[in-house]
């Protein structure tokens, strides 16, 4: 619930981006349903069953995959960054005909993405059910909130990432990252942080605390980025953590970004320094990755990797990720992706202590 609500409130320009997006989606749906309807008309009942996923997958080989639409579970509600990322990719794959069969994106929101993720985990590993998920899965695993983790899936490809930014009020007393951290180290629990406990922005403040020994913010559960922003505006909290896309959206409205918690500066807010530049080793980026159920045949994973790689390389996807969502991309697949996930999990584990009650 937490992450989904947080992301559902991501403030990208709905009028401009989302409506166009949804128009595209509905167009796509017409194509999709037309296909489905023709399948129903053309074949007997058995085929309809196959569509419903009842028939067992035929022998695994790259040539005969995919022979039916792929169900892509988005474990969050429409309107958030995860949903938008998936929809943009889905349209790109459809338009460039990168797969012979359509991808049907289905939102199964709730419980910070665990509901949808669990559905995919328990789905038959035939390559016809895939999942987009974000770093929340690692946090939930590290904190022990879920009884499954990324190892219960077959990581396919990394999609995009967005580094977190520490933000305070423009009219408040803290003008630099150093001032803020010095103040909190000098007097622990004197400054209030507001956000979503157990989610990406909580992880970000945990990383900040770790980089400045002795720092301890008073943490208040407010909700997603929009609530943190409202809290800063209403002077209820002092510090909040936001994604780059959110900073771009809120910046004119009284929010001052202090530092990017990334390896390097983000082109969208190039004037904001990274915490590392300022001498604090605080890095946390939220990443979207594509997963398939554990045991999905390698050949089929390869087909998916191929199609998504091409889609990620298209100009429209790059442009929309960058401009609409404030996301950057680093394509990783296979063992490289697995290693990175394992490393991130171990890095986060000590900081999630106490996230589960």
């Amino acid at each position: 619930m937490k992450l989904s609500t947080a992301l559902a409130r991501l403030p990208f320009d709905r009028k401009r981006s989302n409506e166009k997006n949804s128009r595209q989606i509905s167009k796509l749906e017409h194509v999709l349903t037309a296909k489905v309807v023709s399948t129903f008309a053309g074949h007997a009942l058995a085929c309809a069953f196959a569509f419903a996923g009842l028939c067992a997958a035929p022998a695994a080989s790259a040539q005969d995959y995919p022979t039916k639409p792929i169900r892509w579970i988005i474990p969050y509600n429409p309107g958030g960054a995860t949903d938008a990322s998936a929809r943009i990719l889905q349209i790109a794959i459809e338009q460039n005909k990168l797969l012979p069969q359509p991808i049907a994106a289905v939102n199964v929101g709730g419980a910070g993405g665990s509901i949808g993720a669990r559905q995919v985990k328990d789905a038959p590993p035939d390559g016809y059910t895939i999942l987009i998920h974000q770093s929340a899965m690692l946090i939930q695993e590290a904190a022990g909130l879920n009884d499954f983790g990324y190892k219960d899936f077959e990581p396919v490809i990394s999609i995009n990432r967005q580094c977190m930014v520490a933000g305070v009020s423009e009219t408040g007393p803290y003008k630099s990252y150093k001032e803020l951290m010095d103040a909190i180290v000098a007097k622990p629990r004197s400054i209030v942080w507001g956000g979503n406990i157990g989610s990406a922005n909580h992880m970000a403040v945990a990383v900040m605390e770790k980089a400045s020994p002795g720092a301890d913010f008073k943490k208040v559960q407010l909700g997603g980025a929009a609530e943190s922003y409202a809290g800063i505006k209403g002077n209820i909290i002092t510090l909040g953590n936001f994604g780059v896309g959110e900073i771009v959206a809120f910046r004119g409205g009284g929010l001052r970004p202090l530092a990017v918690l990334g390896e390097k500066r983000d082109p969208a807010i190039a004037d904001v320094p990274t915490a590392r530049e300022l001498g604090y080793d605080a890095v946390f980026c939220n990443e979207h990755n594509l997963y398939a159920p554990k045991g999905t045949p390698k050949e089929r994973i390869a087909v998916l990797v191929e199609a998504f790689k091409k889609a990620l390389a298209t100009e429209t996807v790059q442009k929309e990720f960058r401009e609409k969502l404030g996301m950057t991309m680093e394509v990783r697949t296979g063992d490289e992706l697995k290693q990175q996930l394992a490393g991130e999990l171990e890095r986060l584990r000590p900081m999630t202590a106490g996230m589960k009650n």
Partner: protein
Amino acid sequence: MEGFLSASLAVVSPGTLPFLVGGTALGVLLGAIPGVTGAMGIALLLPLTFYMTVNNALTLMVSMYVGAIAGGLVTAILLRIPGEPSSIVTTFDGNPMARKGQPGKALGYAVGASLFGGLVSWAALVALTYPLSEIAVRLRPFDLLALVMMALVLIAALGQGSIIKGLISGLLGILVSMPGTDPSAGNLRLTFGIHDLDAGFSTLAVLIGAYAVAQVMSDLIEVERKVETVETTMGSMWISMREWKAQWWNLIRSSVIGTWVGIMPGIGATVGSLVSYTVAKTSSKTPEKFGTGHPDGIVASECGNNATVGGALVPLIAMGIPGSVTDVFLLAALVIHGLQPGPLLFNQHPEIVYVIFAACLISHFVLFVIMTAGIRYLIKLMTVPVWYLFPIILLFCLIGAFADNNRVFDVLIMLCFAVVGFCMEKTGFSLGAFVIGFVLGPITEKSLRAGLTLSDGSYLDIFMHPISGTCMVLSAAMFVWSLRSQHRINKLAAQGGEAAA
């Protein structure tokens, strides 16, 4: 202003206008059918809006809301059966007037008053929402908590039946919102080991089950109820300017009362028309005429209930607190489209707010046209038996509950809550309080916990700040008052009814 103009243009654009006109017409139709309320219709249309643009979805729902409240007046006047609960008071004077051979005139008064009340409350909506949302951004968690508690006490105190049962219903709603992932700490609770409950009860499944399915079930039991038709020869609906002039003070007073009642969180159109009617009666020089087909009674009631629509949208948009049961469904629709009603809505998506404003205004005019032009046909429809609608509505419910998350489990939840809702309704527990408690539950808990974190665990803090302190004192006073003079409003209503009978 510019934003509002462009939103108005968007609402009357060829792509959206059908939704506006269709929504209003459908609202009138459903409002006119006894046993099928507008809130239910909106609940059933919710799943359809998943795949519409936000503009179309909101236009459709707001115009249905406006249409439904007015639709109830037709059967209330002609058949003495309120099509909507909010039209009960209209039967007091509307039906006697129709029986006296002036059905056209009664309808004319009612339709005109609806338009007037709607417009006044629309003006209030536009004028108040922005300032209120500016204040609401600065509300501390405890302020919000106190406001929500006041809303719950209010709906229990002014709803029908016992205040104790009203409070139990509201609290039960809060309790039902709790299983699943705790939104504040992220851990699972109260799921009893069922993983399908990890996200809690699906909002749509609970709302549709408790509200729509339960209602259809009780309608089915009473399917043999005969509609007592009143032979009416439609006279002219024309009300002269001179006759309206005699009503001007009544119109303004009832509109203001209706708007104010609408703004109060949790109570809706029924109370709005009831209070307007009571005030009109007590301040009248000829109170004995009320209940005998007095135009003042019709005007007060219809003006009062339509004025609540605009008023009830104010707390919904500005604070995310639904002003009535119908607003609960509007809230759900907004959330489905990734929009959280609340103080930030105006900041982040002003265009959405303007679309709501525009739809609310324009649909009132569309409503007026539909009612004046189509009322004859609407009357014919009243005599058509509606029993075959019930299974279709149930099918809609099934699809709606399923479509929320594409899970069969949610359909089962819907059926369970249908049983719960049915039992509660039959034993005098208010379902309105239940669904409002259900959508307010998460806010209540979040504000309590965030507030306690901020105050380092001190509950006293809630009385120390002006807004939260005032709200707490008001809720306590209201609780004591309604315990003492229990069901005062209902008694007044009963007296009105007796006078009319």
